[in-house]
């Protein structure tokens, strides 16, 4: 259970800035996500969260340090690491159903093996009536849900999720959170999850990582002690919950203020 699935070792990443110089985006970031662990990544806007996911997905290579999956350096993306992007990135030439079944169709799975699952996921994300629609015929939140179903269907060992519920209303979001926990618990997927919502992080995660402002570093790593299954209403009454939330908020706020150039609140 404590076998590390994702490891970042002293990772630094820079991007070419306009003009001559380079912007340091990540600076000596080390982190580990164990097999079957659910880790939430929080941090001020622009601190490098998406960049970390991109490194783990294999889209970018670190300038320094190593990014490992099961102790092996990551060189390219693979279907064992599913990803939900910050933007839905659906394929506009496919219907919602074809978008959702894209993964299994690519890996050559037998149609019978995923068809029932696909319909079930479409149902669960509330798109059963929109299976024949094209992405541009969906609302923002519906697109995000389609992207979720697409990432879930192939049942990857590792899931990288970049603010996947950002465009959803409270109830739909809760439904999706419960769906995700359910999937995660049944399959013991390893999940690295970016969010700005502390409540969401505390409801979902085993551990919360808070990043500092650019150049991003891991500022804090907090274990979430609540027993599962969790209930959002009950959590609110837990005294540890309030404290943890305040700590995290405090950390994020301090960093966000830095990155906005405000006086620390």
């Amino acid at each position: 259970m404590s076998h590390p699935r994702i490891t970042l070792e002293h990772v630094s990443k820079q991007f070419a800035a306009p003009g001559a110089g380079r912007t340091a985006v990540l600076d000596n970031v080390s982190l580990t996500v164990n097999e079957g662990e659910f880790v939430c990544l929080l941090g001020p806007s622009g601190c490098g969260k998406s960049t970390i996911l991109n490194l783990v997905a294999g889209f970018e290579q670190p300038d320094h340090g190593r990014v490992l999956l099961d102790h092996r350096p990551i060189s390219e993306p693979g279907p064992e690491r599913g990803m939900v992007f910050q933007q839905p990135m659906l394929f506009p030439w496919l219907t919602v159903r074809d978008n959702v079944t894209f993964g299994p169709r690519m890996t050559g799975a037998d149609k019978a093996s995923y068809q029932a699952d696909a319909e079930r996921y479409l149902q669960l994300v509330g798109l059963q009536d929109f299976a024949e629609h094209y992405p541009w015929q969906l609302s923002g939140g519906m697109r995000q849900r389609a992207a979720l179903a697409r990432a879930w269907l192939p049942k990857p060992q590792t899931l990288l999720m970049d603010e996947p519920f950002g465009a959803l209303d409270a109830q739909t979001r809760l439904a999706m959170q419960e769906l995700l926990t359910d999937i995660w618990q049944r399959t013991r997927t390893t999940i690295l999850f970016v969010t700005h919502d502390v409540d969401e992080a505390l409801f979902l995660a085993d551990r919360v990582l808070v990043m500092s402002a650019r150049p991003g570093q891991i500022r804090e790593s907090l274990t979430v002690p609540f027993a599962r299954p969790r209930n959002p209403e009950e959590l609110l009454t837990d005294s540890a919950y309030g404290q943890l939330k305040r700590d995290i908020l405090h950390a994020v706020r301090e960093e966000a203020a830095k990155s906005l150039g405000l006086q620390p609140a």
Partner: protein
Amino acid sequence: MLWQLSGSLGWVDPLLLPPPSDLWQTVQELAISGYRQTPLWQHFAVSTGRALLAFAVAIALGVPLGLAMGLSPLFGAVLNPFVQFLRPLPKIALIPLVIVWFGIGEGAKFFLIFISSFLSIVVGASAAVHGVSQGRLRAARTLGASRRQQFVHVVLPDALPEVFTSVRLSIGIGWTSLIAAEMVAANSGLGWMVINAGSYLRTDVVLLGIVLLGLTGYAFDWLLQLLQRRFAPWTGRDA
């Protein structure tokens, strides 16, 4: 209208631009007795047949090749010089070489039409790759699409609207070079008819040929636009 008027009023010499009324008469004549023992529809059929075959092959080979060149820098770097060198060459100037390689049969005619559209399709398709959304390509990769699958299922459809434009332009080029192709020892075909009639000052036949060439080219284009609406309806949609 303008045209009939300009003829009737003598703005342009009817010898060089026969009025539509004359043209109509020519159509009837040619429809009945043909031009050079070959009925008009057969000239038309021969030319469109030649062109369609060449276009089909040019598209079938050119689109994948162009996309592949756009995707793989190495592959592109190797083939690009050839394509870019050959593309701007006037096809008329190549006729002698084409005859040497392909003889004077249908092979040479096919090749001339094929090569003109093929090269442009390759360039257009390879340029279209640069417009392919990196984000969608990334999404496909995390879903386990192999290189070939990324190609077929993401690059191709994403580039499709732009590829369609290139194909439309390229087919225009190919159709223009029909006349060059039919300069090679042909004795039927619209291009040949135009050239041949031109050398006897049969301006009515020339003009009729031009009108038919133009209309057929127009029809090809219309067909392609129809196909595009059918197969790439997402053009310009943000998703």
